[in-house]
């Protein structure tokens, strides 16, 4: 297959099919509408099913039912819609159902706006719904990476029985880039879904998909079982890109679309002889703490750049663990940081003016 010029939201759709997804349940919201539109046409062509639900709440609960039936199912939405799905996501996490949720983040709070934003970092990584649970959260920064991550997401989710979230933003969803959609590279040994509710056929005891444990000792046991899976994920699924980190006087930290703008700023700094590095988390949870260990001791500071008022900065500080000063620069509401402004922030840190 050769590269094809595609729009981000359509890449999500085609790569989902490539990853084995056959069921999509969604509700319209800008800026992700091309995902359901694309899949409404494509899924029936591959023997799958598209359902336009009556609400985001219903859509995520349809995913619950489908995933509990053993299918590879997904939903996509944008910020306010993802907020509505949080109840369902928590139940899915509690019932240990695999699925994929896409959030093409737009500005908030409330109805907010429809321009790109990264203001849902907390919601994605801190558990937007109730309870002790985690999602595996990927934040691609280009469409080829989006295609590769999306293609693998269902397998990863099936393997751990933990829902996967793809955190994009309006920019990732709307831009076009050449993409090659190839079969998932990472092949895992997947056990049969013998827990799925497919009818007993008179051959086994009933299966129950459930997140209710009225006995607190049993709930604690269940949560510890989840925690063990989360520890496995932390040990095996961390992904990041590190650029010139070892030698840098300032290390920038940015993900998704913002990381591309930061990279431009870093290139310009390099032309001026400045040593600036970049840590780009690809998994937002588990967070790539280990990437920070390569930063030199006398690095003048870390600069976290986000399209928000500062959310990932908390994880940067946790990873830095007091070893370096952490600074923040961000734009919010759908406004996008300019390379020039990022450069100025970098220089202020180097000059000791921050």
């Amino acid at each position: 297959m050769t590269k094809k010029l595609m729009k981000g939201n359509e890449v999500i759709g085609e790569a989902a099919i490539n990853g084995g997804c056959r069921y999509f349940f969604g509700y319209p919201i800008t800026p992700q509408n091309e995902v359901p539109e694309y899949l409404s046409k494509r899924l029936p062509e591959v023997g799958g099913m598209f359902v336009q639900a009556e609400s985001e709440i219903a859509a995520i609960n349809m995913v619950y039912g489908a995933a509990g039936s053993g299918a590879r199912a997904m939903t996509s939405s944008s910020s306010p819609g993802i907020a509505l799905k949080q109840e369902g996501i928590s139940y899915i996490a509690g019932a240990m159902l695999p699925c994929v949720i896409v959030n093409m983040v737009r500005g908030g709070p409330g109805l907010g706006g429809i321009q790109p934003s990264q203001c849902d970092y907390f919601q994605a990584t801190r558990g937007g719904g109730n309870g002790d649970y985690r999602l595996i959260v990927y934040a691609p920064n280009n469409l080829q990476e989006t295609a590769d991550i999306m293609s693998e997401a269902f397998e990863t989710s099936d393997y751990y029985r933990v829902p996967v979230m793809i955190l994009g933003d309006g920019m990732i969803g709307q831009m076009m880039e050449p993409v090659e959609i190839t079969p998932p590279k990472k092949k895992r040994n997947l056990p049969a879904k013998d827990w799925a509710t497919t009818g007993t056929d008179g051959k086994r005891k009933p299966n129950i998909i459930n997140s209710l444990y009225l006995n607190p000792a049993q709930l604690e046991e269940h949560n510890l079982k989840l925690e063990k899976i989360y520890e496995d994920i932390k040990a095996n699924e961390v992904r990041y890109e590190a650029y010139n980190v070892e030698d840098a006087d300032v290390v920038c930290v940015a993900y998704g679309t913002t990381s591309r703008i930061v990279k431009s700023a870093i290139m310009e700094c390099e032309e001026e002889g400045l040593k600036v590095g970049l840590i780009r988390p690809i998994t937002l949870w588990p967070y790539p703490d280990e990437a920070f260990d390569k930063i030199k001791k006398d690095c003048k500071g870390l600069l976290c750049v986000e399209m928000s008022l500062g959310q990932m900065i908390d994880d940067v500080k946790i990873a830095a663990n007091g070893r370096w000063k952490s600074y923040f620069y961000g734009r919010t509401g759908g406004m996008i940081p300019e390379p020039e402004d990022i450069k100025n922030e970098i220089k202020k840190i180097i000059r000791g003016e921050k």
Partner: protein
Amino acid sequence: MSVVYQKSRGLTDVSTHYCPGCTHGIIHKLVAECLVELDILEKSIGVAPVGCAVLAYDYFNCDMQEAAHGRAPAVGTGIKRVQPDKFVFTYQGDGDLASIGSNEIVQVAHRGEKISTIFVNNAIYGMTGGQMAPTTLIGQKTTTCQDGRKEELAGKPIKISEMLATIDGAKYIARVSVDSPAHIRQAKKAIMRAFQTQLEGKGFSLVEVISSCPTNWGKSPVEALNWLRDNMIPYYPLGVYKDWEAE
């Protein structure tokens, strides 16, 4: 010695948590008997609600999913779309279905989803301790309308069967009661019919079962059934509201 009656194998062999005099037990039994008599128990997937029947997944002897409050029809949709050849039913109370899940129940009917719903209407929130439901009768006392439900504050009780019968995708809608042997027999017939509606691929089906809640109504089981007959059935008339074969 021959066995003349035994517990349906559609039910698991455990004691339920239901209060004395509660009619959930009878309704469970009828649903289980229908699943067995139609020979669909082994290909059934049930969806339990949030409410008194939250633990129904422990009682029905088939695959079960436990849904979030009000979302059983959406969960059932997901199951049925993946497994169109299986039998899917939801079992929901009036707080679950008529209040928080009213959109889901309307839309599942609207899509003509080929699933069946057992809707247990006892005019009160049972599990949380007796609060007002959308189905609570005018003047009926609950913990959140201690002087009785007032129309000017809470409106009149919602009539789910009548409402759903107006939706094209709903192919069988009936309201029954389980307060007497005669009514129990009629209820079973309605449940059979609802299940057959799904098996024949016609569309959505629902049986509303008028039920009692002696604990939260503050009545003995017998008083509760009398109150049901005197107050609930006049407001919620029994009968078949929609039948695809009659059309």
